[in-house]
């Protein structure tokens, strides 16, 4: 397997996007990289997501009246896993931040983006490209982690950005949105007007920095993890360059790196869930920051600061 990885020339070569077999089809190739690996994985992930969640929803759905209490029971492991995740994230994570009303409004978007990222992360863990090599299929058809592509994460962050701003304008209005970007300082003492431009510039930059940070965080974590994993797996092949193949030292390096790679794969599995959660959770936090409650808190803080300034004078 490590030799297969070595065939990719570098750890980056194994992780980065590449052309799929479909790219070699003439009419597809003519329109560019339409059928790159990550694009194929995006489509595949989207199909798996929709089919999987529709299947889970059909199992979670309330049954017929004649079924008694059984109509409320969720059957099937996939549906139960989805239900546990949804209930936990909704009740323990999102609802404490957004409140019940906003949670109901934003739950479809937040959970769609969570499961979309999760599916892409998990599918990316499957060694599909390596299997193609193993079975002699040298044209890449499938494989790769689409969320390790900055273009994909940026697109998802664009959705988050739109969601945050839609919520902001709906909750605060345009003037409220502007006021929010000044942290309510315009309502404070006149002296604070001096810092309003600075605060506004920082907050306005923050409007864009937040989604950019979302994109880079997801991309960097998925890319970094896969590069590390690929590097570790490639170590035996690298050792083969300096050590005699089949020697004790070579076996030792291979077993050690193989074990470490297995452990790292479990870590990657955890990271797949974690990064999906972090993206969704931070989006929820950013949405909640642009709500009336937060705004009122800021006004309160400004009032406190103004009172302290007045006391000093």
């Amino acid at each position, binding site marked *: 397997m490590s030799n297969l990885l*070595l065939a990719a*020339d*570098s*750890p*980056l*070569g194994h992780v*980065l*996007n*590449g052309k799929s077999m479909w790219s070699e089809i003439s009419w597809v190739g003519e329109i*560019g*990289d*339409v059928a*790159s690996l*990550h*694009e194929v994985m*995006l*489509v595949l*992930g*989207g199909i798996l*997501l*929709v089919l999987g*969640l*529709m299947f*889970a*929803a*059909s199992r*979670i*759905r*309330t049954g017929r009246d004649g079924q008694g*209490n059984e109509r*409320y029971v*969720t059957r099937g492991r996939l549906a139960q896993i*989805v*239900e546990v995740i*949804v*209930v936990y994230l909704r009740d323990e994570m999102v609802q404490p931040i957004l409140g019940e009303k906003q949670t*109901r409004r934003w*739950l*479809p*978007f937040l*959970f*769609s*983006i969570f*499961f*979309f990222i999760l599916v892409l992360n998990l599918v990316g863990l499957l060694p599909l490209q390596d299997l193609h090599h193993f079975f002699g299929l040298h044209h890449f058809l499938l494989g790769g982690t*689409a969320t*390790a*592509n*900055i*273009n*994909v994460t*940026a*697109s*998802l962050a*664009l*959705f988050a950005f739109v969601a945050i701003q839609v919520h902001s304008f709906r909750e605060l209005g345009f003037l409220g949105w502007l006021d929010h970007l000044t942290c309510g300082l315009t309502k404070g003492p006149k002296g604070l007007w001096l810092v309003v431009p600075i605060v506004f510039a920082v907050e306005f930059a923050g409007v864009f920095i937040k989604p950019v940070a979302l994109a880079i965080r997801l991309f960097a974590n998925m890319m970094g993890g896969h590069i590390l994993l690929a590097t570790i797996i*490639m170590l035996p092949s*690298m050792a083969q*360059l*300096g050590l005699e193949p089949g020697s004790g030292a070579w076996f030792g390096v291979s077993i050690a790196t193989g074990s470490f790679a297995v452990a790292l794969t479990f870590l990657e599995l955890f990271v797949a869930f974690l990064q999906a959660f972090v993206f969704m959770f931070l989006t929820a936090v950013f949405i909640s920051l642009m709500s009336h409650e937060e705004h009122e808190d800021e006004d309160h803080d400004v009032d406190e600061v103004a009172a302290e300034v007045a006391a000093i004078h």
Partner: protein
Amino acid sequence: MSFAILLAAADGAPDPMKLNLWVAGTALLVFAIAFSILYFKVWPVITKGLDDRNDKILGEIKAAEDARSQAKQALSEYEQSLAQAREQAQQTIAEAKAEAQRLGDEMKAANERELAERMARAKADIESARRAAVADIHANASELAAAVASRILKREINPADQAGLVSEALGELDEAGV
């Protein structure tokens, strides 16, 4: 090939930060389509299923609480009625005891009264009988005395003598305490 060669090969690898509008557009399109389907076909079903179950559980809990409350109230009413019945029974028993006592006292008083009356009547009867007996004794004694005296004196004693002798004898009897 050495590690340095591998690193050198990495230099020719694609730039991970390279902008690719096709990939970005695909991501936008795929997520938009997936989100649209999920928004209308999945999340309403899942949230409704969860809400229905939640409502069912809350309804069952409320029904159980209501039933427990009703049972508690029924138990309280039962205990209250039991206490009332017990109190009523105690009261009835006390009243019965008082009535029995009263009747007993009345009967005792009536008996005592009747006994006293009977004793008085018996005493009176005895007294009258005694008096009659004494009168009979007096009569018989006077006749007997007259007869004895006649025999002794051999003569007839007239009633005036007889009355004088009787009175004298009775006077002696009275003095003798007969």
